[in-house]
């Protein structure tokens, strides 16, 4: 009796203490992308997509009775900064990272997550050399081989003559695969590569000299491997100098920024993409409506894929009732039944994504799908 009396008093005291201090725990997801500087629209759009997903999940009651908390970090699209912010996330107890957003940072960050038992789910890293490796890296965008192959087929089919390649040097790993595949695919074709030009995103290009060089090399078509706003600037300057090449673009450039900042100068450009911004699929309409309400702009492919990355991760947490990164990885790669904004998203056993890719032409400021 005396023991019971003592215990009840001790428990009462501890309850009183815990009532004063215990907070509700959240499940932390990290989001990392380049949020400042040129080309940061990709990271910022991804952040807004991830935020919308978290808001939707929490509004529906969260996961296992807990809210999702998105811990956001800026990797400045720099591999060293990327590594240090990943370490900060690990120190905060984060075990799932949605990001990073460009292939250029993957060389440092993928080995880091492998070593620290963290699962990285990237919306937009498409670097091919990360394919078919069973590690802690999962992506919802297919390898850039898919994009480069479709673009090179399109170029061969259109036979535009002499092709120039303009590429941004802050995402060299992504560009290299494109250039290699394109070079291999058109080796015995009529179209020839007339020259390659790298540019620094932090330095304004000398557009006049560039156009003169392109004209001297008799280049009449261009593959531009850059972000949407960078391509828009090239397009505006090409139009001013009455230089009208046939232009081909990767999915990276196919953003709302390209349309808004490119004006009529980008009409007639071709590009590949995994998303259809004029889709009438109910899932997409619902997502698009929510996104416009939250952020006042159309969602870009980066926003869509970041949204899907969060949803994919959370679905796996719910169905496995676990927050162990390796259990979640297994769930995603072995029992994946996730239905994305544009239909089924298939992730294979090594974490690589398969989804439909399409060719678009920009007509009157709209991405119009080109029939195969």
């Amino acid at each position, binding site marked *: 009796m*005396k023991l019971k009396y003592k215990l009840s008093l001790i428990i009462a005291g501890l309850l009183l*203490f815990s009532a004063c201090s215990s907070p509700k725990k959240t499940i932390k997801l990290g989001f990392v992308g380049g*949020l400042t500087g040129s080309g940061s629209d990709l990271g*910022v759009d991804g952040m*807004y997509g991830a935020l919308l997903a978290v808001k939707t999940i929490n509004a529906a009651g969260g996961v296992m009775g807990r809210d999702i908390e998105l811990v956001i970090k800026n990797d400045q699209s720099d591999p060293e900064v990327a590594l240090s912010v990943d370490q900060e996330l690990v120190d905060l107890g984060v075990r799932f990272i949605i990001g990073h957003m460009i292939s250029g940072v993957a060389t440092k960050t993928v080995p880091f997550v492998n070593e620290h038992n963290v699962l990285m789910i990237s919306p937009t890293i498409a670097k091919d050399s990360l394919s078919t490796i069973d590690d802690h890296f999962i992506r919802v965008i297919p390898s850039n081989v898919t994009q480069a192959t479709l673009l090179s087929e399109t170029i061969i089919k259109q036979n535009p003559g002499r092709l120039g390649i303009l590429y941004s040097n802050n995402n060299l790993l992504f560009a290299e695969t494109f250039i290699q595949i394109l070079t291999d695919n058109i080796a015995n074709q009529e179209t020839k590569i007339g020259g390659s030009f790298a540019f620094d995103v932090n330095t304004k290009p000398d557009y006049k000299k560039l156009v003169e060089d392109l004209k001297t090399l008799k280049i009449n078509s261009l593959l531009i491997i850059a972000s949407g706003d960078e391509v828009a600037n090239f397009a*505006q300057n090409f*139009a001013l100098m009455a230089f009208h090449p046939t232009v081909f673009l990767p999915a990276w450039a196919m953003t709302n920024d390209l349309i808004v900042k*490119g004006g009529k*100068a980008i009409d007639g450009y071709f590009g590949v993409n995994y998303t259809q911004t004029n889709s009438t699929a109910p899932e997409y309409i619902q997502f698009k409506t929510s996104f416009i309400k939250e952020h006042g702009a159309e969602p870009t492919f980066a926003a869509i894929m970041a949204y899907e990355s969060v949803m994919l991760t959370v679905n796996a947490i719910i169905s496995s009732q676990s927050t162990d990164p390796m259990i979640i990885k297994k769930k995603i790669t072995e029992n994946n039944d996730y239905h994305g904004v544009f239909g089924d998203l298939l992730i294979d056993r090594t974490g690589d994504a398969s989804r439909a890719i399409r060719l678009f032409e920009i007509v009157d*400021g709209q991405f119009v799908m080109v029939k195969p």
Partner: protein
Amino acid sequence: MRIKTPKLYETLIAIGLISVILSMFLAWSLVSSQLTTYFVEDAKNQNIEISTTITAYVEDKLNEAVIHLKLIKESIDLTHMSKDEINALIFRFNQINQSFVDIEVIDSEGMVQYTLPQNSNEIGYDRSREPFFSNFKSDAEIYWSSVQLSPYTNSNTIMIAIRYGDGYVIGYLDLKEIRALSDVYILSFGSTRNITITDQYGIYLVNQDQTLIDERRVDPHHEMEMTILNGKFMVIHEESEYETSLITASQIKSNGWIVTISEPYQVAIGGIDYVLKIVIWFAVLMLLAYALML
């Protein structure tokens, strides 16, 4: 098993302790609730006053920027001025008020016709697919963009557009200028309160933490702030930061931006909560001590 009857002194200690603890809690609950209400009400009134003052001040300053664009619009005489004269006039105006990183005059087709000399490469750029061109409401006088990267400086800017005949005069307002507008208030009140300005979608324009602005972050309280506009007031508990705050919000009418004052509850009510914790600890310790004495 034989039940031991408590000794008289144990019973007296127990009754004494319980009486003391109960009276402490009773007295505290009566006094603390009144004290808390008083402090919260006082903080509320002060914060509402600060937020409405900042709102009016920023609105005035933004109006100055708009007036500046209107003066440019009225000073341009297309029939009697050459292209160089118009560009030079825009340059002179920009020297007087350097809030804008660029000013452009756009024709009815959406093409840049005139701009600052340092950005003359952009003359001929096509702005016809910018939202101000397609979304400008017929009855609206001014278009305010959301936060966007400047095509000139890569810094965050707001675009302001006003009509000019069939075209537009547009200015790219550097966010640093907006921060400068409210610096005086941040310096005065920022040590105890967080002063924030966001655009209509909750993207930070002003905050003590500059990285939130640079990274175009969204204020996590935006939705809640929208519900407490017009001088209303709310107490929220931030579970992730274990902090309760008093929030006041008001809106800049011309463009829908929101000015928010957030003050930690602990700061607002002074030391009341600290004393309460000591009282609770004291009570817990007395209970534990008594349990061990038995």
